């Protein structure tokens, strides 16, 4: 599937390959999983090592760890309220995992595991299951009143209930497709413009070299934009998880 001739091959970057040859092959551990492990290691290092000194006046790393903590803590308590503290570690793990997945993916030669719908859907499904379990644990069967808003005319029940159920079930789909599509689109664009740089640059001599500057500049701007998207999508994932948790705890 490597780029042959003039074809633009923007999709082979998403292929899964075994990590560390035969070892990865034997347990089906792909380079995507290796990047997940790297994200795990980096997050743990940031949070544990960053605050290990327990300084009253934080250094850079500690300030980063603390602001990450307080950022997500603010999202959770802001959406769910004080009862949300129980779910804070979950939302924090989701946010950091997605954020580091997006950010690591922007490094050259790195793989973006959040560009796989299977991964984002699994995360979204995890959120869905957790939210539903929380709602059932708190409200029991009363939870099902969520699908029929109080005060709505009874006659509309056949219409409202299916709509509410569908919108509830479509949450993991929209949550996962949003992240997946954003990451794929960004990386495809980066790859396409990078291919333009090589194609134009090698095509027409000096003129080509001058012409290649344009897609190059475009790529530079795109990388900056992708950093924004990487953060924004992690934020969206975390805040939507918090909103769903709010619904689960408070039922509207």
């Amino acid at each position, binding site marked *: *599937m490597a780029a042959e001739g003039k074809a633009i091959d923007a*999709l*082979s970057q*998403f*292929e*899964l*390959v*075994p990590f560390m040859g035969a070892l990865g*092959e*034997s*347990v*089906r*551990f*792909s380079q*995507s*999983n290796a990047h*997940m*492990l790297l*994200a*795990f290691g980096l*997050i*743990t290092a940031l*949070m*544990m090592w960053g*605050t*290990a000194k*327990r*300084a*009253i006046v934080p250094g850079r790393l*500690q300030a980063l*760890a*603390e602001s990450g*903590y*307080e950022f997500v803590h603010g999202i959770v308590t802001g959406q769910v309220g004080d009862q949300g503290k129980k*779910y*804070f*570690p*979950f939302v*924090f*793990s989701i946010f*950091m*995992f997605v954020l580091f997945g997006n950010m690591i993916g922007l490094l050259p030669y790195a793989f973006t*595991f959040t*560009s*796989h*719908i*299977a*991964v984002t859907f*699994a*995360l979204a499904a*995890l959120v869905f*299951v*957790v939210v539903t*379990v*929380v709602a059932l644990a708190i409200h029991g069967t009363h939870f099902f009143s969520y699908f029929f808003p109080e005060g709505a005319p009874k006659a509309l029940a056949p219409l409202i209930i299916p709509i509410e159920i569908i919108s509830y079930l479509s949450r993991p789909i929209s949550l996962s497709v949003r992240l*997946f599509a954003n990451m*794929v689109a960004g990386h495809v664009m980066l790859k396409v413009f990078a291919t333009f740089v090589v194609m134009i640059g090698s095509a027409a001599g000096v003129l080509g070299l001058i012409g290649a500057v344009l897609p190059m500049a475009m790529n530079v701007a795109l990388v900056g934009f992708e950093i924004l998207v990487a953060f924004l999508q992690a934020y969206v994932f975390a805040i939507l998880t918090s909103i769903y948790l709010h619904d689960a705890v408070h039922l509207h």
Partner: protein
Amino acid sequence: MKKTIRIATLLSLATLPAMAQVASEHPGATSSAGMPQLDFGNPWTIAQVVWMLIIFGGLYYVMARYALPQVESVLEARRARIEGDLESAQAAKQRADAAMADHQAATAKARAEAQAAVGAATQKAQAEAAQRAEALNARLAAQIEAAETQIASARDNAMGALRQVATDTADALVTRLIGRSDSAAVAAAVEHELAARGRA
């Protein structure tokens, strides 16, 4: 929720031997045309998710059990430290305010005392001065009176002597002129003359 993740982890670990078997049957990642992400027939896609659940479970465990409590305790320690510092600062300020009030009261008291002392001293000094002046006046008056008496007596003496001298002189003159003496008449004349001149 932790339990859920633990169960998921166990389940995924249980699938490992099966995954290894599949891997040996289809070595290497296969890929068809189109997006590799949508190739759900590829066992690597599913294996990726299983591994992800394991890794995410580990991440959740480490965050919930170690990392986040540590960060929280750091933040809590800082909050406690700041609150303690603020409280001690407030206490210090209260102490300073009390000291300042004490100082002001003491100053006011000292000033009042000083003013009272100054007033008393002034009054005493004035009384003493008045007394002294009175005594002096009395002494001076007595002295003046004595002097005046002395002067009056001296003048009386002098006036008495003057009459005697005048009478004697007049008598002597009369005797020389007329050859006889009429002391009584002379004395009367001198008396009359002195009375006329206001020297009697």
